[in-house]
């Protein structure tokens, strides 16, 4: 089989391989193609020496250039941190209202705070910070504890009813189910609902007002406008944390629910908290 064989039709020598009488013509590649092929082989060998390649028993060769994709990522992250450095330093040194007043700095803080919000806050407040029943909507202009950038910062720093932080925002409405009668609860609920224009049974409103004056004004105020010092909500507006309407109000009077927000200072640090405060402040309801 190995003897030289010339194909009669084309006059080209064959490779000596034969299958069922069919022989393979020996048409060599063009020279430049062969040369390119050899160059790629040498290139590949050089590459495996220069870069991590050959598998060993427990690891692999490191390559003489010392390249590692982990270092690449680390360098890129360092460069990104360095690029942010100027802004981060400014956020650290300035107060939140100063940050909010500076266009470039606010833009940075809103972006950084937004990123932190999407990791840490969306679980309760929702991805659009729109909240849900029991979790406040941060876009609106109704604030239990105040809507200035500083007040928001204070709330995020120490949390609400967060037992392990001594400076936490603390308020606790008593469970009036144990204090006043079910009839009185019905009356006061009707009265409170009427304050924000929800039409109610007129016969309940007047006695309800009396119940309110006796039991509720201490925290919610004479005009039921609430008190931010105590975290007491404004009962005359259109925003209801636990739902609008008499039934929802009655349930909250009888046995109030008290939401808890953790103090974030320990986990996020002051800079992140400031950025978050500026972000929340920018959502449209900031004062």
């Amino acid at each position, binding site marked *: 089989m190995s003897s030289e064989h010339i194909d009669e039709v084309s006059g080209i020598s064959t490779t000596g391989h034969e299958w069922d009488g069919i022989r393979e013509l020996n*048409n060599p*590649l*063009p*020279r430049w193609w062969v040369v390119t092929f050899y160059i790629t082989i040498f290139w590949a060998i050089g590459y495996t020496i220069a870069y991590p390649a050959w598998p060993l028993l427990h690891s692999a060769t490191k390559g003489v250039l010392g390249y590692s994709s982990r270092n690449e990522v680390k360098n890129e992250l360092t460069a990104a941190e360095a690029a942010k450095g100027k802004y981060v330093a400014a956020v650290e040194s300035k107060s939140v209202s100063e940050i909010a007043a500076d*266009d470039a700095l*606010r833009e940075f803080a809103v972006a950084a705070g937004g990123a932190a919000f999407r990791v840490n806050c969306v679980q309760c407040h*929702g*991805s*659009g*910070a*729109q909240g849900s029943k029991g979790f406040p*909507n941060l*876009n*609106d*202009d*109704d604030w239990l504890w105040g809507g200035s950038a500083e007040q928001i910062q204070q709330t995020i720093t120490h949390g609400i009813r967060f037992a392990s932080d001594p400076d936490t925002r603390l308020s606790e409405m008593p469970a009036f189910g144990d204090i006043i009668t079910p009839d009185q609860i019905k009356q006061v609920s009707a009265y409170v609902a009427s304050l*924000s*224009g*929800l039409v109610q049974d007129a016969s309940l409103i007047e006695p309800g007002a009396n119940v309110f004056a006796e039991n509720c004004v201490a925290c919610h105020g004479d005009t039921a406008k609430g008190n931010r010092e105590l975290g007491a909500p*404004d009962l005359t*507006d*259109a*925003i209801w944390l636990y739902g609008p309407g008499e039934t929802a109000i009655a349930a909250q009077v009888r046995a109030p629910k008290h939401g808890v927000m953790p103090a974030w200072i320990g986990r996020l640090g002051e800079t992140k908290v400031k950025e978050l405060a500026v972000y929340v402040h*920018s959502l*449209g*309801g900031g004062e």
Partner: protein
Amino acid sequence: MLDQTHVERLEAEAVNSAKTRQPLYAARRKIFPKRASGSFRRFKWLVMAITLGIYYLTPWLRWDRGPFAPDQAVLLDLANRRFYFFFIEIWPQEFYYVAGLLVMAGVGLFLITSAVGRAWCGYTCPQTVWVDLFLVVERAIEGDRNARIKLDAGPWTARKLVLRVSKHAIWLVIGAATGGAWIFYFADAPTLVGELFTGTAAPVAYITVAVLTATTYTFGGLMREQVCTYMCPWPRIQAAMLDENSLTVTYNDWRGEPRSRHAKKVLAAGLPAGDCVDCNACVAVCPMGIDIRDGQQLECITCAQCIDACDGVMDKLGKERGLISYATLSDYNANMMLATAGGSCPVTPSLVRTVDGKFSDKVAHFHIGKIFRPRTYVYMAVWSLIGLGLLYSLLTRDRLEVNVLHDRNPQFVTLHDGSIRNGYTVKLLNMIPEPRTIVVTMQGLQGGEMSVVGDDIPAGRSFAIPVEPDRLKMLKVFVRQPADQIHGTAQTFTFRVEDRASFEADEYTATFNAPETAR
């Protein structure tokens, strides 16, 4: 009658002749094009001067656009995503103008090709122009065809080394100048040229120059006709573009055959002799290295050098020019039928000539009217329609625009007094290089008011805001509507932006969402 003593006979053979048909993979046969002279060669010099002139000089043209825009007449500002072309400035979203120009270029190429064949290939294609330029250098250094063949075949002497090194060095300089001119289209040319030579230009500038130097040198100097024959798709496409009325460079064998190197002897022997004296001048000048007498072929770029060469020979012989000429297939076929008496005999010179040696009246000659035929009318119409459409669109385009993006999360926010607020990202596009004050007004949405985040603009139904020249200004706008004015969960209203100085305006119809339970 025939005096062939003045005609130099050249040893030249077509690289693709049927006699020497090569296998698919074979080393390149070297081509040493002889310099031609004549009207087509002069025309090519002119085209070369114009195209190279445009290429090298355009970045240096200035165009005053005021203090807020670059003063370079043609500039592709990739960093700021702006394209400047004299009085036209194009933003990225207006890139369809460039697409339109490319469509026009395509249709234009069809038009030109169906009328005068591969004129693009022969005269204006950068490959052709640069190869011509490289050949000028080659001839200046190594001499014309015969000297070059001799030099190439000769041993490596000091002279050969000097000639070769200087030739390639000049080629590389031309390559670098080609790449160097290219980058000036992408940055301010006077600034960049300084940076380039002081080593302070961006790395991408040097990389671009290096890549273009390499491609210019390789394509123009080393590969030449191989680019056209093997790499370029246009020779394949042109087969579909040409028809029997397209002008192509044609060897008129109806008057050339039977060719003879010894016409006098042949005639004396009483045999017919055509006009072709088989001097090979047409093959020697061909930059593609082909023999046009083999007929129309893929490799021919219709540069018409063979026409010049042959006309020179015909002049010396005292015969009519145009043995090789621009001719249409229909004329050629008609003449061929005439010369072969309808295909019944070989080409017979006496059938196309009268007894006194003049062409017979029946010989068909090209008439300019052949260019104007339905096909070219259609191309011209399409080309003009696209052109007029682009022009109309360009003259009436907006230079002030508003884009609005409605917040989707949350879609609406209930405020403490029960009113509903929607958020919008409003983008104001000031597309002229001058600062402007834009008035944003809302129309519709009863009782609604706008407020702008981060700006000390009082809430209202209209506000004015300055926008920087040639920039987009992005505003976060809150629109608030009192509870008692809300009608339905999705009301529409309009953002209107105006430049009250120039009376330009644009509008966007937005939706205002409200909950079903808004009180």
